[in-house]
């Protein structure tokens, strides 16, 4: 909780069983004898200058996530731990910061500089570190502690340090068990029988008998490069220059394994704790530093990207490759086919467009096997390259005979051929433009289930001069049993404009009065 050194004690409260209780207190309030669980009225009576704020769990969670992000500057493996803690895996990292105690010190000072009070604990297993950070004066457990040292460290701690539920702790207190030592030195079976298996399991976890891993917020990247600065850098030029050097480092790492980056992340750690992550994707495996820099530059200049808010500057910059793919061996100038060159230029162009505008905006289309017009196409990001057809597309049931009986397949093939030859000479059966939402129109027909004579769309009346239809498209009964049938008409008005609209619902059978919708426009 954010502490204010000189001001009044601060606490947050929440409604617990209908009464307002303190849930969290700052250091100053704790000194004055206020503790979580105290009714708010009592606390106010004791300390009239208490500043009490209603707890906001959502905002707290957000802040904790931000802190966890910021802690990534120390190790890539960072996990959230409950509502009030962050777990770092610092195996093999601590020496970079001058040892474990120096590292814990640095984390605490840096968080304090941001106005955040924190306690660090370091141990071999997560459960032990959790207990040390919250309940112990000792903060660092030496690696592979012998049994005697273990007893010294943990036996004096209260049972709550096992992370047990309050009710269980209260039960055990009634039985005269209040410290971890009381349980650890007793036979296991009776304890397990009386207070549940959890107590024993937690004790084993504390001892490190059962290995548990943390689940980090972000997977550790395979390749990454970073630069730390004693004094923070602020300008775009300095950031770009650093990015280029990082890209060089990264491409050396990638080159060693003959790989190229398909997805890259550039993380900027601001001095005051904010972390900015910029992601870019590439259509082909990249390992040229200049190309990587160019992609990020597009992102810096993207219209939806807010101004580069450097604040007091960034002191750690990290470039990670989140997805690497084997690189096709590069051909020399000797056999540079213009065809290959074109493909490469196109891939680069699509990468740049996707980086600037977002991958959703640069697409190719795939057809889907369905008769419902609006679902017959899907747009897939163009940068996905070869892996374009998603699993969802393949899951769609194929036409009869597509896979199976060869005679049926031949039949289907022939049908498709005829359709194609018909399509060659005939006017297009599908419109050039399709409205995302069909627009309601008013149409006048001679008979309720006959073709219309004129219609009114966007406040203009169109006289129908030529019409083809209906083309009946039934709803997919295997998905939605009672969807209305559509009768599509291709019409041309007296001025030569061509439209595609439909009547929804079969007159007399499905609906009493059919509605008409404009669905598309022909060229």
């Amino acid at each position, binding site marked *: 909780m954010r502490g204010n050194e000189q001001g009044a004690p601060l606490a947050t409260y929440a409604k617990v069983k209908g009464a307002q209780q303190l849930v969290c207190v700052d250091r100053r309030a704790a000194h004055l004898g206020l503790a979580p669980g105290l009714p708010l009225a009592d606390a106010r009576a004791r300390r009239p200058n208490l500043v009490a704020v209603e707890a906001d769990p959502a905002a707290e969670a957000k802040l904790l996530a931000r802190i966890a992000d910021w802690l990534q500057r120390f190790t890539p493996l960072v996990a959230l731990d409950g509502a009030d803690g962050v777990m770092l895996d610092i195996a093999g990292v601590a020496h970079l910061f001058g040892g474990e105690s120096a590292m814990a010190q640095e984390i605490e000072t840096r968080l304090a500089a941001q106005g955040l009070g924190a306690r660090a604990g370091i141990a071999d297993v997560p459960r032990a570190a959790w207990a040390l950070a919250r309940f112990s004066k000792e903060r660092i457990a030496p690696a592979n502690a012998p049994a005697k040292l273990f007893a010294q460290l943990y036996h004096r701690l209260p049972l709550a340090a096992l992370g047990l539920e309050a009710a269980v702790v209260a039960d055990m207190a009634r039985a005269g068990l209040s410290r971890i030592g009381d349980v650890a030195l007793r036979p296991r079976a009776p304890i397990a029988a009386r207070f549940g298996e959890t107590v024993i399991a937690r004790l084993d976890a504390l001892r490190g008998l059962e290995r548990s891993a943390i689940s980090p917020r972000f997977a550790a990247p395979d390749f990454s490069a970073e630069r730390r600065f004693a004094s923070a850098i602020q300008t775009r030029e300095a950031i770009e220059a650093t990015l280029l050097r990082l890209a060089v480092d990264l491409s050396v790492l990638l080159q060693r394994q003959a790989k190229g980056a398909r997805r890259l992340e550039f993380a900027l750690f601001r001095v005051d704790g904010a972390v900015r992550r910029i992601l870019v994707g590439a259509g082909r495996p990249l390992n040229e530093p200049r190309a990587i820099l160019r992609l990020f530059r597009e992102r810096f200049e993207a219209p939806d990207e807010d101004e580069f808010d450097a604040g007091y500057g960034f002191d750690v910059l990290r470039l990670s490759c989140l997805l690497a793919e084997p690189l096709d061996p590069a051909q020399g100038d000797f056999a540079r086919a213009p065809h290959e060159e074109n493909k490469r230029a196109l891939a680069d162009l699509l990468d740049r467009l996707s980086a600037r505008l977002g991958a959703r905006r*640069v697409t190719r289309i795939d057809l889907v096997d369905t008769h419902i017009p609006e679902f017959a196409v899907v747009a897939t990001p163009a940068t996905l390259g070869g892996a374009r057809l998603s699993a969802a597309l393949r899951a769609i049931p194929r036409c009869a005979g597509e896979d199976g009986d060869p005679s049926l397949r031949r039949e289907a093939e022939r049908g498709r051929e005829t359709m194609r030859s018909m399509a060659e000479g005939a006017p297009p059966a599908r419109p050039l433009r399709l409205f995302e939402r069909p627009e309601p129109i008013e149409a006048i027909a001679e008979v309720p289930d006959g073709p219309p004579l004129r219609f009114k769309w966007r406040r203009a009346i169109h006289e129908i001069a030529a019409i083809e239809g209906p083309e009946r498209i039934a709803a997919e009964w295997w998905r939605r049993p009672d969807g209305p049938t559509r009768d599509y008409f291709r019409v041309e008005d007296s001025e030569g404009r061509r439209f595609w609209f439909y009547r929804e619902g079969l007159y007399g059978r499905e609906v009493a009065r059919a509605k008409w919708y404009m669905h598309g426009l022909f060229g």
Partner: protein
Amino acid sequence: MSLDRRLDTMAHLRSAILRIEAEAGPRPRAPFRLPVTRALDGALGGGLAGDALHEIAPAGPGDGAAAMAFALCLAARFSAASPRNPMTLIACEEFCACETGALYGPGLAAFGLKREQLVFVNAPDGRALLWTMEEALKSGALAVVVGELWSVAKNYGLAASRRLLLAARAGATPALMVHGGLFGQTDALSSAAETRFEIAAATSRRLPPTGGRLSLPGRPAFAARLVKSRLSPSAQGPPPRLFDETRVTRLEWRSGEKCFHDPTVPLSVAPSPVERPRARLAGE
């Protein structure tokens, strides 16, 4: 201002333009020209230049779909004329999709454009659209770049079109700019484009009725008016008297053959694509 000083200013400006032109580089050679249809090719100097900006504007508020369709016809022809490099990029401003519907895959296929050869860009605003087109043109990796701009009055003018023209020249790629949100001002707009068409929907050649009273709508048809044709000095075109901006030509699109209905102009008159200048790609 006296006449002398005015002449001086003009000379000064001319030399400045020449300098800028020299920086941009001259056209390497006479550009590839794509024949459109016999009725228009005369005024176009043999066809649409393969390294320039062409504008297509709807004639009336309901002709937006027809203008885009005409642009796609030209794109299909450009793409077919460049078999080695047939990719087409279609960039639309986001608002166009809301107003006139989004381009629809099966409909494009019926129009003669191959799905595998299309890339779509959905630009959030006019500036992003112009940037996209410029980048795409400069890359030289595409057969043709089509853009549909809604906010013409706000974002498009002499400078913007000049940038596109230079990019088209640098990448030896034709640019087709469709003015989605502008109609009725085709003659007033000033831009650096080489040609400008005004397109209206035209009554199709109807097919005989199959059962009902009314006949069936036929193939896509347009009424095209060539409003502007600025032949560059290097083009060995016919004299400009063939150009008549009041004449309206009726065009009918045949998606199978990828040509307008005009039996005298086959598609294959295009020169071999190997000859196409690729200034940027060659790197020389």
